[in-house]
C-alpha cells in the first residue's frame, strides 16, 4: 500500500517538469548545501556575464547582440558533450548511484506554454533563474515579479485539466 502511494506521488511530481529525481538513498537535509554551492556559482555567472540584464535580453530578441546566443549555445554544447560522456562511460554519482535520463514526451503544452513564456520573458527580461539573481542584487521590485510568477504557476495548476495538452 505504501509503495502504491509513493508511485502516485512520483507520477504527480513527474507532470510537466524536467527535473524529477528519485533517490533511494536518504541523506541528512544538510547534504543539500552542495546544491546551494552550485547555485552560488551560477548566480555569480548570471550577474558577471550580464545574463540577468534586461537590456541584454532586449538585444537578443532584436538580434542586436550575439552575447546571449553565445552563452546559451556554448552551454548547450558543453552540456551535450557532458551528457554524452556520462552515458558512454556510465558515470555514477558521488554516492555511487546510477545517473538516469528520462525521455521527454511531446505535448501541445510545449508549444502553447512555450509561446506564453516567451512573451513573458521579453517583458521581464528574465527567465525564472535570473529573477532570483536579480532579487539577490537588491532590486526589490523583482519580488513582485516572482510572486506573480508563482501565482501564474498556481493558476496553471488550478486549470490544468481544462487546457489543451
Amino acid at each position, binding site marked *: 500500500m505504501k509503495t502504491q502511494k509513493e508511485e502516485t506521488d512520483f507520477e*504527480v511530481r513527474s*507532470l510537466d*517538469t*524536467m*527535473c524529477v529525481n528519485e*533517490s533511494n538513498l536518504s541523506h541528512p537535509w544538510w*547534504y543539500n548545501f552542495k546544491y*546551494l554551492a*552550485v*547555485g552560488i*556559482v551560477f548566480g*555569480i*555567472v*548570471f550577474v*558577471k*556575464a*550580464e*545574463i540577468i*540584464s534586461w*537590456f541584454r535580453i*532586449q*538585444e537578443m*530578441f532584436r538580434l542586436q547582440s550575439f552575447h546571449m546566443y553565445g*552563452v*546559451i549555445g*556554448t*552551454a548547450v*554544447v*558543453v*552540456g551535450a558533450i*557532458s*551528457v554524452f560522456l*556520462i552515458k558512454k562511460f556510465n558515470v555514477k*554519482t558521488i554516492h555511487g548511484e546510477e545517473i538516469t535520463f528520462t525521455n521527454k514526451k*511531446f505535448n501541445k503544452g510545449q*508549444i502553447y506554454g512555450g509561446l*506564453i*513564456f*516567451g*512573451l*513573458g520573458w*521579453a*517583458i*521581464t527580461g528574465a*527567465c*525564472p*533563474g535570473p529573477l*532570483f539573481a536579480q532579487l539577490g*542584487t537588491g532590486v526589490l*521590485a523583482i519580488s*513582485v515579479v*516572482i*510572486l*506573480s*510568477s508563482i*501565482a*501564474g*504557476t498556481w*493558476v496553471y*495548476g488550478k486549470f490544468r485539466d481544462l487546457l489543451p495538452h
Partner: protein
Amino acid sequence: MIETITQPWPWYTAGIIIGLIVPTLLILGNKHFGISANLRHMCAACFPSNIPFFKYDWKKESWNLFFIGGIFIGGFIAAHFLGSDAPIVIHPALQKELATYGITDLSGMVPTQLFALHDVFTLRGFIMMVGGGFLVGFGTRYAGGCTSGHAIMGLSDLQWPSLVATICFMIGGFVMANLILPFILSL
C-alpha cells in the same frame, strides 16, 4: 586576477560554466538542471489548495530550492563584492529606442525606470511586473520547463520536445519585444 573577475565576463566563459552545471548536478546526486519547477514547489508547499497538481511531496525536491537559494546569494555576492556597477554598453539602436520611452538610465541589470516598487500601480508598471511575471510562471509550467530545463538540460540530452519548446520561447520573445512591447513601453 581581481581585475579579470570584476570586468564583465565574456559569453564563452559564462557558457562553459553554465554548461558544466549540467554534469555537476548529475554527478552530485542525479539531479536534472531546472529552475522553474521551484515555482511549483512553492505552490505545493504554501498554497496546495487541494489541487491535484500540487499534491505531492515537495520536500523530495528540496534540493531545487537550495539551488535557487544559492542563485540568490550568488547575485548578492556578485553585486556587492565583485564590482558590477558600471553602466552596460548596449546597442545604439536599442539605446535610441528606449530613450523615446523615457528609459535613459542604463545602470544596473534592471532598468529602475521600469522596475520599481512605486510603479506597480501604474498601468505600465503593472503590465511589466505583474503581467510579465504571471506569463513567465504560467508559461514555463505549461511548457514543462524554462530556459534551463528545456533549452539547456533538454537540448543537452537531445530531447526534441525541448527543441520545440525552445523555438516557441524564442518566437514568443521576438513577437513581444518587437511587436507588443513598444506599445506597452509607450503607455
